């Protein structure tokens, strides 16, 4: 009786669907290629996953507040280019350049927020426009040339951001800790704090929230800034780890990140969001990309699989939801 209640409660959680999907996915890939669960492959998958994951976490909060941000991919590319340009042209030391790059990223977020919150322009158009401006600026200032980077190691900043070490057979990057930290902090903020209540209210019924004196606009400004800053941060981490700062990097990440968030169970229309769901969504999509290469799907068919799996997973998701809603 009690057991059954517990089970029903578990199934009722919005995160249950994505959880089942992830488990299924891992089971299938491992069955096809046992190397899929090798420590080496897990370490490999984790490295980039958490970088994209950082953006998805911020996007979860933003989407809960009823907005979304298509410019994250361009900021992901722009921030490291800016940092390395400042450093390479000897305008400032790397540490300072790092902060300047983050500051500029947050200003981009603020500009997005200004258009959305003040001028009431749909965030789709604003961030699409911003995407073009930021990407264009990155190209223009660098003349299209990638920035020189040194390989990681040695520097204090590099150690903190992307230093790696081994735990048993696993190679763990510092970025994993940043990711876990972000999960904890943002999960706490969304679910437990006053700010979290405001975020959900801003997305659920902005009129009602405003009428109660909730700073809906202020909340959105903060979230746009958060999303841009984390996108910049994750771009810098990625650029140091991969020793590449190319004005084109991050192209197309926006859709992938939004898909992660939505697959995790956050409502596309705002009001309801889940950090745990997003974490599951992140792993569902990245595992899929990694697994597809591991099991040897032909390069040109790659997209067919990604697309078909998104559709299949969503169908499963909707079926699970329906079962739960049917009650009894």
């Amino acid at each position, binding site marked *: 009786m009690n057991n059954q209640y517990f089970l029903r409660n578990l199934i009722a959680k919005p995160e249950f669907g994505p959880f089942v999907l992830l488990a299924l996915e891992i089971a299938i890939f491992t069955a096809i290629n046992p190397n899929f669960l090798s420590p080496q492959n897990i370490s490999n998958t984790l490295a980039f996953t958490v970088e994209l994951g950082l953006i998805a976490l911020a996007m979860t909060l933003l989407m809960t507040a009823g907005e979304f941000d298509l410019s994250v991919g361009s900021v992901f590319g722009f921030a490291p280019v800016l940092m390395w340009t400042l450093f390479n042209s000897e305008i400032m030391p790397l540490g300072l350049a790092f902060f300047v790059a983050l500051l500029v990223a947050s200003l981009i977020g603020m500009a997005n927020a200004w258009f959305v919150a003040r001028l009431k322009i749909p965030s789709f158009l604003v961030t699409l426009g911003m995407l073009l401006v930021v990407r264009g600026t990155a190209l223009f200032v660098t003349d299209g040339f990638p920035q020189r980077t040194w390989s990681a190691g040695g520097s204090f900043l590099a150690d903190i951001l992307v230093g790696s070490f081994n735990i048993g057979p696993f190679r763990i990057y510092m970025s994993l800790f940043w990711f876990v930290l972000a999960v904890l902090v943002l999960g*706490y*903020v969304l679910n*437990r*704090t*006053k*700010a*979290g*209540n*405001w975020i*959900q*209210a801003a*997305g*659920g*019924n902005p*009129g*009602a*929230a*405003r*009428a*109660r*004196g*909730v700073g809906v606009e202020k909340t959105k400004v903060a979230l746009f800034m958060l999303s841009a800053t984390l996108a910049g941060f994750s771009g810098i981490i990625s650029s140091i780890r991969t020793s590449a700062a190319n004005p084109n990097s991050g192209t197309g990440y926006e859709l992938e990140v939004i898909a992660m968030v939505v697959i995790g169970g956050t409502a596309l229309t705002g*009001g*309801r969001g889940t950090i745990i769901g997003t974490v599951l969504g992140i792993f569902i999509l990245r595992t899929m990309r990694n697994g597809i290469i591991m099991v040897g799907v032909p390069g040109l068919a790659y997209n067919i699989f990604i697309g078909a799996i998104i559709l299949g997973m969503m169908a499963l998701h909707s079926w699970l939801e329906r079962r739960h809603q049917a009650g009894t």
Partner: protein
Amino acid sequence: MAEELIRMENIGKFYGRVQALKDVNLVVNRREIVGLLGDNGAGKSTLIKVLSGAVPASSGDIYISGRKVKMKSTNDAIANGIETIYQDSALVPQLSIARNLFLGREPTIGPAILGRLDTAKMNEVSRELLKQVGISKNIPPDTPIGMLSGGERQAVAIARAMHFDSELIILDEPTNNLGVAETRGVLNFVRRARDTDHACILIAHNIHHVFQVVDRIVVMRHGQVVADNIDPKVTSVDEVERIITGMEEEALL
């Protein structure tokens, strides 16, 4: 003798080409319960939306305690001690009862906006409030608003105003959707408001409810105030109904 709290002067309001308000004057004194009556589309909701900063007036001025104020947003109104419960009750369907009750004024443990919500306190107060407002069923405070019945939602909105009492409380058709017990709870609340030093504007189509609690009745018709000093102890319900509909419509029934 009576101490003036709110004075609205020559308020006009256009929605695009529609004129919803025309030269409206309204005074509310401290500790006064004013009933605002009028037929559908008379402009009642618009008038109190102007007063609570939800829509900007096209013309006219607002004074609070004799001081001219600008109502540019609901925040201005809240800062000036005006609390409003809208007709289309303003709750967030995804949030729980407790979170809705405390929305915008959440008690926290720790630093300001990033402080942890004091859920224990929120739940306790919520349970207490739901009881006061007359909800007989035992609804847990963490139930999402979206799962409540129409009347239960309305009751939550009322409960909120009861808790965060301000100088002026505006209720736009608060008894709609409410059952017998809940309606009693709301009317009691309005009576208590005066005793605890608050002024109140009550809009309702059920004239009987209005007569039970108000000090003075103001009637609007077609965007204008047509009577602003009706004493419910002197004038009859029938007479007020006639004023509301306009004499010429007498023939209708």
